[in-house]
C-alpha cells in the first residue's frame, strides 16, 4: 500500500511540473525518498484538483492491475484532450495506453471484446457526446452480455470522459447523458463531483466486474478540493450506489450530481443566511440510485428540490421524484421542485447558454418556494 501512496504523490508532483521527459527515468530514484518525509507532515488536508484525482486513480489502478489499460482518441501522445492521462503513456507504454483512430464505435466495441476475454479496459470518450457513435456497444454489447449469457460473460469495462455542458461549445458538445445511461439495466452510472469522488469512484469503477459509465465534467477538472490522507491512499475506494450527504440540514433536501453539487452547496449557503437549513445530497451514483439516503433525508426535511443539468423530461429528477412519491409521499409538505436544463438543445451564444442551464439562484428560489417563503414567480403564466 505504501508503494501506491508514494506513487500517487510522485504523480501529483509530475502534474504540477510539466517539465522534461526525464521524469520516467528520474522518478523512481530520486523522488521517492523525498516523499516519505513529506508524508509525516501531511496531517493537514491536502488539496488536489479533479484532473489530478482522476489521473492518480488511473495510475494507481494501472500499476496495481496489469490487466487495466486505457484506450481512446488522443489519450497517449497528447495525454488526453483534457490531460487526464498525463504521464501514463510514458509510464505504461503504448500497449497499455492506446491512441486509437477516430472510430468511437470501433474502440468501444474492441474494448468490450477485450473485457470479454479478461482485460479491464478504460475507454475514454473525448466527450460523452461522441459516445453516441458507440452507444450500441455500451448498451447492447456491454450492458446486456452478463444477463444474456446467464452470468457466463462479465464485462469489466469503464467508459469515461467529460459529460454535460462545458462552456461555449454548443449543442453537440454539451449534453448530459446521465439519465440516458441510467435508464439501462446492466450499467452502473457514476457522477463524481469532488476530487475525493473522482478518486474513489474511478477506482471503484475500474475494480468493478461490470460495465460502468463514468461521467466527468470538464468544468470541474481544474477545480481543487481538500482531500484526506485516507482518500489519497492507493487502497481508497468508494462504494458504488451510495450517495454522500455533503451538508446536513433540516428544512429542505436538495439532490444534485456532478457540477450541480457545487451549485447546490452555494445555494445552501445563501439559504442559510435566510434561515433555511438545506440538506445537500451528492448522488455520486445515478445507477444504482441511493433511494434510501434520499428518502431518509426527505422524511426528515419534508421537502425536496432535485437539481440536474440535463433535460427535464424523463430525467434523473423525475426518477428521484417518483421514488419519493412511492416511498415517502406522506412525508412531503410541499410539491417536489425540479430544476433542470431548459428543454432545448444547448445554444452557443453565451447569454442564451447561461439561461439554458440551472443557476444557483434557480436552486435558491425553488428551495424557498418549497419552504413557502416566496410566491411563485410566474403567477400569471
Amino acid at each position: 500500500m505504501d508503494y501506491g501512496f508514494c506513487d500517487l504523490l510522485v504523480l501529483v508532483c509530475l502534474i504540477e511540473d510539466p517539465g522534461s521527459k526525464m521524469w520516467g527515468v528520474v522518478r523512481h530514484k530520486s523522488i521517492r525518498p523525498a516523499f516519505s518525509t513529506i508524508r509525516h507532515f501531511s496531517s493537514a488536508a491536502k488539496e488536489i484538483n479533479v484532473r489530478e484525482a482522476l489521473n492518480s486513480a488511473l495510475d494507481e489502478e494501472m500499476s496495481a492491475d496489469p490487466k487495466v489499460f486505457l484506450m481512446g482518441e488522443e489519450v497517449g501522445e497528447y495525454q488526453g484532450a483534457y490531460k487526464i492521462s498525463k504521464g501514463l503513456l510514458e509510464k505504461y507504454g503504448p500497449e497499455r495506453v492506446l491512441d486509437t483512430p477516430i472510430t468511437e464505435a470501433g474502440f468501444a466495441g474492441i474494448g468490450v471484446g477485450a473485457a470479454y476475454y479478461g482485460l479491464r479496459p478504460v475507454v475514454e470518450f473525448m466527450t460523452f457526446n461522441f459516445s453516441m457513435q458507440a452507444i450500441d456497444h455500451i448498451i447492447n454489447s456491454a450492458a446486456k452480455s452478463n444477463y444474456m449469457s446467464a452470468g457466463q460473460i462479465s464485462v469489466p469495462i469503464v467508459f469515461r470522459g467529460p459529460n454535460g455542458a462545458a462552456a461555449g461549445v454548443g449543442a453537440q458538445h454539451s449534453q448530459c447523458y446521465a439519465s440516458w445511461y441510467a435508464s439501462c439495466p446492466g450499467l452502473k452510472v457514476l457522477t463524481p463531483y469532488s476530487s475525493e469522488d473522482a478518486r474513489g469512484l474511478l477506482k471503484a469503477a475500474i475494480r468493478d466486474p461490470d460495465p460502468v459509465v463514468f461521467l466527468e465534467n470538464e468544468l470541474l477538472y481544474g477545480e481543487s478540493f481538500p482531500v484526506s490522507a485516507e482518500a489519497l491512499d492507493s487502497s481508497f475506494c468508494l462504494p458504488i450506489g451510495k450517495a454522500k450527504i455533503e451538508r446536513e440540514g433540516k428544512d429542505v433536501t436538495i439532490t444534485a450530481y456532478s457540477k450541480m453539487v457545487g451549485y447546490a452547496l452555494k445555494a445552501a449557503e445563501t439559504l442559510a443566511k435566510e434561515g433555511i437549513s438545506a440538506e445537500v445530497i451528492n448522488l455520486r451514483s445515478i445507477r444504482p440510485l441511493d433511494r434510501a439516503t434520499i428518502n431518509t433525508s426527505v422524511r426528515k426535511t419534508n421537502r425536496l428540490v432535485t437539481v440536474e443539468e440535463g433535460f427535464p423530461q424523463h430525467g434523473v429528477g423525475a426518477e428521484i421524484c417518483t421514488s419519493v412519491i412511492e416511498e415517502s409521499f406522506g412525508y412531503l409538505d410541499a410539491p417536489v421542485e425540479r430544476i433542470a436544463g431548459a428543454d432545448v438543445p444547448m445554444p452557443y451564444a453565451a447569454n442564451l447558454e447561461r439561461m439554458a442551464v440551472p443557476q444557483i439562484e434557480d436552486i435558491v428560489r425553488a428551495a424557498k418556494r418549497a419552504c413557502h417563503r416566496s410566491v411563485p414567480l410566474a403567477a400569471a403564466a
Partner: protein
Amino acid sequence: MNLNRDGDTLMTLMGTTGIDFPGGTVDFIPEMKFIYGSDKERIPCYRVLDDNGQPIADHNFVQVSEEVAVKMYTDMVTLRSMDTIFYEAQRQGRISFYVTAIGEEAINVASAAALAMDDVVFPQYREAGVLLWRGFTLQEFANQLFSNKYDNGKGRQMPAHYGSNKHNYVTIASTIATQISHAVGAAYSLKMDKKDACAVTYFGDGGSSEGDFHAALNFAAVMEAPVIFICRNNGWAISTPISDQFRSDGVVVKGQAYGVRSIRVDGNDALAIFSAVQAARKMAVTEDRPILIEALTYRVGHHSTSDDSTKYRPANEIEWWRVARDPVARFRKWIENNGWWNDRAESELINNLRQRLLHTIQVAESVEKPPLADAFSDVYDIPPSNLREQEQWLKEIVKEQPQEYPANISV
C-alpha cells in the same frame, strides 16, 4: 445468360478459367496468393502545376478563365486573411473557438469553383472557403463567430460552425463524419428529384475512420448516388498522425474497395483540384455515380484554437509545408505568368482586406446578442404550453433580477 443450368452451361459457368459470379467473371489461378494490405507502389497523385506554379509537361486540365482564376486567387487570399484575423480575435478572448484552413486554401476554393451553386455541400469544419466562394460575406462570417442577432444560426452553434440554406451549405455538425452519410442521402434525393446537381461532402483523414464514411461509400455505390466525397488528407487528426489512423495507401484505395471511382490529387495545386472536381461533378451528375477524391495536403495551422501542434509535430515539417508547398503562392505564380495578376493588385487586395476584416469584427461585436425568445424557438413548430410557460417565467425573472443576467439580451 442461359439460366437453364444443364451440364454444358454449368461447365461454362464454372469453367476451368473462371467463375461467372455476380459482378463479373472471376478468374481461377493455381497459386495461393494473398493480396497485400498495401502495395509498395502507391497510387499516384494527379498534379498540374509544379511547386513553382509552372504547368507540368503533358498536363491535362480543364481551362479556367481569367475571371474565374482571379476570383479563385482573391478568395484564397481572403480566406487566409480571414483565418489570420479571426484566429487573433480568438486569442484575444473575443470569441471562444476558431479553426483555420491554412494550407488547405486550394482544396477549399478550387473545389468550390468547380461546382455549381445548386450542388449541396456537407462540410466538416475546415471548408469556410467553399462558403466564401458562394458569396457568404465577411460580415456574415463575423456575425456567426460573435453569435450576434444577425447570425443566421441565431447564436446556436459554436463559432466556425457556419450554415446557410441560401448557399446550399448545410450547417456544420461537431460530430466527426456524420455529414458523409447525410450527403449520400441528400444525393439520393437529388437523383429522385431528377435535379441537375450533386451532393458534395468534405472530411479529413481522421473522419475516414468513422463508420459513417464506410457506410456512406458503400451506400453511395449501391444506390448510385450523385455524390462527391472530398477527403482532405492533411496528415493529422488533431495529434493523431495518419500512420496511427490507417495502414492503407491513404483513403483513395478505399473508394476502389467499395466500387467507387476515385482519384488522388495534389491538394495544394488549385488547378488540379479544379480540374478533378469538375470532371468528378460531370460524372456524378450525368452518370449518377459517386466519386471519391483524396486530396493530399497538410494542416499548416494548429488543429483549432484549443491546440498547440508544436507539442506533437516537428516545427520544420510545418515550416516546409507552409513555405515550400504553399498553395496560394503557387497559384499566384501561375496567374502572374498568365499576366492576370501583379504586385500592385496584390498589395491593394491585402491592404483592403485587413481593414475590412477588422471592421467586420467591430461591427459584429457591437451588435446585440440574439433575443431571449431565440432560446426557445425551432424545436417545435408550435411551442407547447410548458415551453411557453418557461419562456414567460424566464422573461419575468430577467426583468425582476436584471443583475443576475447579461445586460445585452433583449427580452
